[in-house]
């Protein structure tokens, strides 16, 4: 409260935005900060990398003699992390692979979060939908995901590749497949939050002045479930990257000339004993991405929760 009667000049602290508070809280989490730095570094590498490191990840010397000589090169200035068994530059392949893996992670996360939040809000808010939607969630949770993904890839890969080209077709198929098989956790979390929020006074107040359900959800409920959703989102990115790697590792993801981190791991496996770095780099990249994203999620949870914030 301001003291209107005071004659002293008023020095008001500039109004602090909520997001600034969030950031201040986030900053106190060292792990999250480091995680974010690592994650941004990786994203920068795959976004800017191709412009700085102008090797074609799929280039093989057409001249067989030169090709044979350029195979299995150790790290050097020309090839900072060496070349693979066909003389392709590993750094360029790592960059190209990261672009696919990270975009798969983001897009699949977006799909799964949107769907999961939608299902969660509907189930939590409308009592009639609760039963059917949650049984649907149980059904998906009970499905063994990897076999389901394999079947989806088998059935739809050709059809999609025919319409959209092999790379885009496979990309859409994989992100959709991962998206529709990983929304259940966020749906459960959101439903729980919504059930609690629905009974709170501000929702009751809004409802009593005749706010329609649509606006209730958008204005009052959704902003309050952002915190758990954000956390679920970060975890989903990590899951999606790992699932894509698993698919590529099984030889069922992207076509063989389309490097992803998972496929690089798969390709490097026969050479594990002779050239362990072939497996080390993609493995490290996957681990770092997943770990950093998890830390960011951890930090976000603390930062977005107003009860923890400021403590």
């Amino acid at each position: 409260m301001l003291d209107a009667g005071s004659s002293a000049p008023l020095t008001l602290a500039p109004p602090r935005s909520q997001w600034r508070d969030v950031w201040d809280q986030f900053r106190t989490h060292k792990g999250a900060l480091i995680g974010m730095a690592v994650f941004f570094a990786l994203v920068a590498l795959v976004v800017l990398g191709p412009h700085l490191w102008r090797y074609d990840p799929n280039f093989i010397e057409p001249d067989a003699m030169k090709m044979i000589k350029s195979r299995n090169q150790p790290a050097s200035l020309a090839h900072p992390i060496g070349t693979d068994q066909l003389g392709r530059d590993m750094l360029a392949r790592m960059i190209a692979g990261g672009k696919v893996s990270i975009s798969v992670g983001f897009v699949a996360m977006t799909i799964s979060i949107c769907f999961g939040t939608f299902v969660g809000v509907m189930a939590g808010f409308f009592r009639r939908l609760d039963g059917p939607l949650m049984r649907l969630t149980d059904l998906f949770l009970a499905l063994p995901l990897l076999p389901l993904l394999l079947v989806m890839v088998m059935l739809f890969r050709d059809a999609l590749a025919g319409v959209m080209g092999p790379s885009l077709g496979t990309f859409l198929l994989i992100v959709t497949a991962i998206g529709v098989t990983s929304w259940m956790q966020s749906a459960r979390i959101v439903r729980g939050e919504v059930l609690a929020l629905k009974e709170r006074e501000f929702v009751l107040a809004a409802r009593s002045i005749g706010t329609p359900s649509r606006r209730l959800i958008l204005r009052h409920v959704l902003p309050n479930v952002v915190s758990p959703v954000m956390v679920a989102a970060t975890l989903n990115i990590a899951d999606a990257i790992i699932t894509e790697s698993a698919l590529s590792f099984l030889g069922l993801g992207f076509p063989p000339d389309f490097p992803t981190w998972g496929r690089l791991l798969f390709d490097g496996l026969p050479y594990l004993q002779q050239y362990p770095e072939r497996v080390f780099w993609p493995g490290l990249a996957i681990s770092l991405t997943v770990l950093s994203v998890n830390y960011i999620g951890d930090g976000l949870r603390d930062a977005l929760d107003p009860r923890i914030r400021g403590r």
Partner: protein
Amino acid sequence: MKLRTILMGAAAVIATAPAAMAERGSDGNVNVIYWQAPSILNPYLSSGTKDIESSSLVIEPLAGFDEKGDLFPRLAEDIPTVENGGVSKDMTSITWKLKKDLKWSDGTPVTSADVAFTYQYCTAPDGGCAQGAHFDGIKSVETPDPQTIVVTFTAPKPNPYLAFVGGQSPILQKAQFADCLGAAAPTCTEQNFHPIGTGPFVVKDFKTGDVLQLEANPNYRDPAKPAFATMTLKGGGDAESAARAVMETGEFDYAWNTQINPDLQAQMTAAGKGHFVNAFGTLVERIEMNQTDPSPDLAEGERSTVKHPHPFLTDPNVRLALSKAIDRQALVDVGYGEAGRPTCSIVPAPAAYASTNTDCIKQDLDGAKKLLDEAGWKDTDGDGIRDKDGKKMHILFQTSTNPVRQDVQALVKGWWNEVGVEVELKNIDASVYFGGDAGSPDTFEKFYADVEMYANNFDGTNPEAYLAGYLCSKIPGPDNQWQGENIPRYCDPEYDKLVAELAKTSDMTQRGDLAKKMNDMVSAVGMDSMALIDRGRLSAASNTLGGVVVNTWDSELWNVQDWTRIK
């Protein structure tokens, strides 16, 4: 049953401990790994090597081939020849005599009726028999008495040793398969999974696509064999893990087809638990060029069928250009090492039949570009990809999932890109690709791609049946459950005439010339079936496993009855 076998085995071990000679069942269990898991134990319903070789443990032909490529009798008393009167002078009939007192594993006698039934089984209408080529040109199979089989041919047959010879053409038990003729054949699951045979082992348990449990056949004709009481044939994994299981961890005694890169071969041998066995035979890694249009725009059942010719692979110059762009020696150096050598011929051996055409071995990128220019495929829109009449030269190249094959794919893609051809790669799990399931879109027989790579060979020393696989009538399609052997859908009336001529030529030199001519038509010059690499059969055997003899002319498990444990 299992307990009894173990007890019997144990009793046998105790009783014969001082004896040097092995007795049946004295050496316990032998573990074999086939990383492509067998899916059926009836070679008449699958052309997959894994299925033919696993079946050969249980069901046997009248005669087989040894490691030198010579015929030896299995169920037959001896090999019929013109000299011993078994083959008629005019070469129109062959008379086989069964060994005396032969018994099926269920104890019933083997008779000539079983042999005649096998012929009937494979030639039944609507059956889609995968080994039909073995029974071509047969007029009748008669059984004058229970021991004698007379096969009469429609025309003089200089090589009468096709039907009932080799692992692809074993004898089925009539009593068991009587209800499985024609269209009913694939539905007889019990019969196809548990065939009753005469081989050294009988099926105890078969989980399709996973594991095959066998035990010694109590009625096997040699009472001292096999030395192993039980055999486990495990499927799954990949070539490398299979090789490791034998060479490094020692969990398995024998690993089939361990196609791994040369660096790894050397390293695994150094571990000292096993050794690689290798011999060159007729196995050729090839790229088949689809003569029909695999476009997904076509209706299911019309894709990759003769109704729609391929937009550009039907042009011999295009195929030749694609071959010229490939450096076969480099493929060998990267992927095969000692276990391979470049070839232009789908019949690389035996010498009498092998074409000497080696024009394809030298890579010629400029020549390839010139040929494509002449064929009218030019890059008119400047995107680096050749086109003609608004159609781009785009190739979908599929093969099975295998690191060596993926390396070959990448290299070939690089060279083809270099001459202005756009290439899309696809790899399919080996057990699906070679699975022969008519319901799957991804089998190599269905060939829903422009080109595809795999290895194939022929049993025995005579390529007649194998070359007859390129007859127009052997094209796989929906009407024969996609079971034909003519994978590239090659069809040339001239070639069909040569097949007929080869079938009635008896002079060896002429036969060789004909085979060479046919090979050139379909492979070395025609490039419909583009040979790449003559592959040795590279398998891994434990140092404790005795009696292993690699045989490239018949099933690799041809002498499993002679395998022993070295103690």
